[in-house]
């Protein structure tokens, strides 16, 4: 029970709404492209004109099935759409088509990594498909509200977890991992800024051994950071309320990212009765075994599998592998680089991983770029590592080359030539320089011989400096040891 907060256990369950990556809407052929002018992606159906009927986008079904496979869930051969009835100006038909009674996927899980390096399994209760609503815009005019139906009917998957999370950290890890899996599967862009991924968090606290407390549902959280903040705030609020002897009510709350607080939206007493019933305009979704098998065959390697493979195939450390697989694009870049390298050895792979994680990520962070916009193809990094491995340049020079590559987008081999950075391998040349360094610094040599062995680095530095950084460090080391022994 390490997770207790002031003696309280925290119970968190999440409902994640992920926009399914489809070109057209769930039940109409209107496009789903982001950022279009208001009401330019609205069909007669989307506007709920009389007599208009839904036609299911089969691709949305395929994507949901693949997501279910990504979460190791059970794909249901029969699922069905139900109507959730409520009045809202941006819900033109007066009902949202969703799947209450027979969702397309049940029982799945996501393994998340905890701070101590262990993993924890978070169970998924169900995934169902539903339509998004439109958008009401209240701040354009003091007099009128406006409605944009571009989002009306955009396909969503609602991924409902079991109440298995015990801390905001776990909740954030869960969403990160969930997002990663969906991106791998390709079933959602998961762009939280665009509202592709929204989280409703259910949270309650109770004393260990006692029954669960009444839960609050925090709606529509659109960033992982906000999720953490909202949960932290809510835990604090609920603890204070409990300890002040106040009654916690089951209610819906909103997170205000400007204050970091949650506030009550409505309590369960005014909760709507949605009068769910099967949508008579749609037939049940019947998935044949062949179709499920076909989708299974289309499944890409998932993050956990990729991590294992990076460790066994390339000998990467678990932490490095974890960093690389965290973003599918990065993982793909890594593998492309390994493939592009001359040696393709475990050594090269590890070097490429190191260069990506330390140097490349630093640049991406510093310049606020992505691997696509950084200005050089990943194959250049492979070439750079090759130049290190075949001893054309030293690791130190490589950093210079890398910096040059970032600013000029030139090929590493060209940079090395242009700047004359080829490593000096000639032992004769290096020996001459090393001898000179030792002769020029008799005092240091004396101290070294007297036992101050840490001066070895000083000699290396001086030699390297004299060689303008281009000397082969191994040769320098070897010669220095040899010559110092002889003195």
């Amino acid at each position, binding site marked *: 029970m390490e997770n207790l907060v002031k003696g309280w256990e925290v119970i968190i369950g999440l409902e994640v709404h992920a926009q399914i990556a489809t070109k057209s809407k769930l039940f109409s052929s209107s496009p789903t492209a982001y950022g279009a002018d208001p009401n330019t992606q609205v069909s007669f159906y989307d506007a*709920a004109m*009389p*007599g208009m009927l839904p036609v299911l986008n089969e691709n949305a079904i395929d994507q949901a099935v693949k997501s279910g496979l990504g979460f190791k869930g059970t794909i249901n051969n029969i699922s069905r759409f139900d109507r959730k009835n409520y*009045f809202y100006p941006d819900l*033109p038909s*007066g009902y949202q088509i969703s799947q209450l009674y027979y969702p397309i996927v049940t029982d799945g899980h996501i393994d998340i990594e905890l701070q101590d390096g262990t993993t924890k399994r978070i169970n998924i209760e169900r995934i169902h498909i539903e339509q998004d609503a439109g958008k009401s815009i209240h701040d354009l005019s003091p007099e009128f509200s406006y409605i944009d139906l571009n989002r009306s009917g955009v396909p969503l998957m609602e991924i409902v977890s079991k109440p298995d999370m015990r801390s905001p950290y776990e909740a954030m890890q869960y969403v990160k991992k969930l997002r990663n899996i969906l991106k791998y599967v390709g079933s959602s862009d998961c762009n939280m800024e665009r509202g592709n991924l929204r989280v409703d968090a259910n949270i309650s606290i109770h004393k260990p051994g006692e029954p669960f407390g009444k839960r609050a549902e925090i709606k529509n959280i659109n960033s992982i950071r906000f999720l953490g903040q909202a949960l932290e705030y809510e835990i604090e609020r609920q603890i204070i309320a409990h300890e002040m002897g106040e009654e916690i009510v089951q209610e819906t709350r909103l997170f205000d990212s400007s204050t970091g607080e949650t506030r009550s939206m409505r309590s369960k007493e005014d909760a709507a009765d949605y009068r769910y019933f099967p949508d*008579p305009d749609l037939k049940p979704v019947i998935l044949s075994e062949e179709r499920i098998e076909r989708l299974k065959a289309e499944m890409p390697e998932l993050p956990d599998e990729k991590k294992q493979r990076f460790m066994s195939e390339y000998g990467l450390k678990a932490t490095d592998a974890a960093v690389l697989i965290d973003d599918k694009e990065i993982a793909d870049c890594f593998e492309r680089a390994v493939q592009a390298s001359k040696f393709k050895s475990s050594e090269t792979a590890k070097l490429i991983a190191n260069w990506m994680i330390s140097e490349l990520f630093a640049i991406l962070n510093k310049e606020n770029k992505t691997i696509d916009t950084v200005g050089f193809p990943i194959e250049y990094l492979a070439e750079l590592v090759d130049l290190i491995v075949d001893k054309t340049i030293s690791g130190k020079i490589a950093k210079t080359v890398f910096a040059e590559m970032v600013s000029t987008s030139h090929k590493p081999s060209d940079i090395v030539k242009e700047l004359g950075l080829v490593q000096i391998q000639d032992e004769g040349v290096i020996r001459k320089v090393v001898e000179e360094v030792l002769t020029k610094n008799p005092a240091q040599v004396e101290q070294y011989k007297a036992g101050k062995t840490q001066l070895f680095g000083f000699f290396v530095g001086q030699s390297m400096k004299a060689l303008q950084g281009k000397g082969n460090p191994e040769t320098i080391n070897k010669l220095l040891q040899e010559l110092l022994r002889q003195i």
Partner: protein
Amino acid sequence: MKNYLTISEVRKGLKSKEFSSHELMQHYLKRIKDYSKLNAYVTIDEDKALASAQQADGRIAKGEDLPLLGVPIAVKDLFCTKGIRTTACSKILSEFVPEYESTVTQNLLNNGSIFIGKTNMDEFAMGSANITSCFGACFLPYRKKSKPDMELVPGGSSGGSATAVASDLCVAATGSDTGGSIRQPAAFSGLVGIKPTYGLCSRWGMVAFASSLDQAGPLTKTVEDAAIMLKAMAGHDPKDSTSENVEIPDYTTFLDQSVKGMKIGIAKEYLEGLNAENLALLEKVKSWLKDAGCEIVEVSLKTTSYALPAYYIIAPAEASSNLARYDGVRYTKRAESFSNIDELYINSRSEGFGEEVKRRILTGTYVLSAGYYDAYYTQALKIQKMIKEDFRDNAFAKVDLILCPTTPSTAFGIEESANMSPVDMYLNDVYTVNANIAGLPAISVPAGLSKDGLPMGVQLIGNRFAEGDIFKVSHVIEKSANFAELRKEIITI
């Protein structure tokens, strides 16, 4: 011009240049004015109608030949017609002009037909007397011998279409049938009306009442016309997920096929409580069919009496949801006064919907509510399943068609109907809802006149996609009844 022309007569006349489509249209437009008190039509664009007739004449002159080319048709105001106001006879849609054409009407246009106008109906197709229309009641063109002054209802909800056909204000008309809305008015008006198998006609562009039960179909003067119209209206539509992907045969090829050896079932449950006139008519029909070589088989459909209660749960439940879109926000008539969004909804809907529609929305909302859903809706779905199985196992495992009455009575008076309780009104559907609940095709064919001189229909219910059999047997009944002659005895106005 000869009155009461059928489709084949019109096509013959047009081809032989006996009259033009334009002349025919003028003829109907004039009659509609003469009979405007019947209130059969609610929207007519004369210029458009005449222009389309002229166009058809041009096509005929070029030698084009289509089953309905140049044939003037009336369209129930439930079908969205591009550029022509479509209201479902509700005040709330009184300003709605669709920018699209329903599949069924488009199919008719593709077959060459031309539209005269939109016909009166019960508001959102909810009613059995055509008295709930926001345009006022529509009248049956007939009178009882005993009370020639009494105004009668044409039945509903497709009352306007029935009156338009029966009064010869068009050649044929479209209707829709959720619980009997084609067959009951057809029976009252001495017409043929068929509700096809659920999924045969596309529902796309048809204002929805109860999606799982709604089916379009024709109201016509003859069985042959019904066969021609249904063939033109039906067909798979990828825009309607409940549309069946089946080949639509030329139903006219069934008309003169022999019915010898066909088994016609009479379910005893349909006879319970039936009035003497109806019973006698059924006996007559049975003997005609026997004479034609059919075998009459007694069957039992024990679920029969459960259909009406199940219907009045399922249909309002779906309606309560289907009608939520008429909210005053977009294309529907918005209340003038409101101070917040809830008031906008409440006032627009309170002002825009009539009493019967409100009653059904409330009923539907109630049966779907938490705590009542299982007691009502779930039970109704179970009953629906039982009824389907009953038809499968106890009817169509043994017989080809079921013969039964269409309505408990002949057309009733408008004043009488105004004083009926909702439940008494709902009982009009007692023989027709079964086919909707089970998704089966059913026809009403005029078979005789009551003592009081009003038309009486009988109903044939078939297995799914048995429309061909239905037309075949209907044609025998039509010929035996010689209704064309009987019609002349009816007191018309």
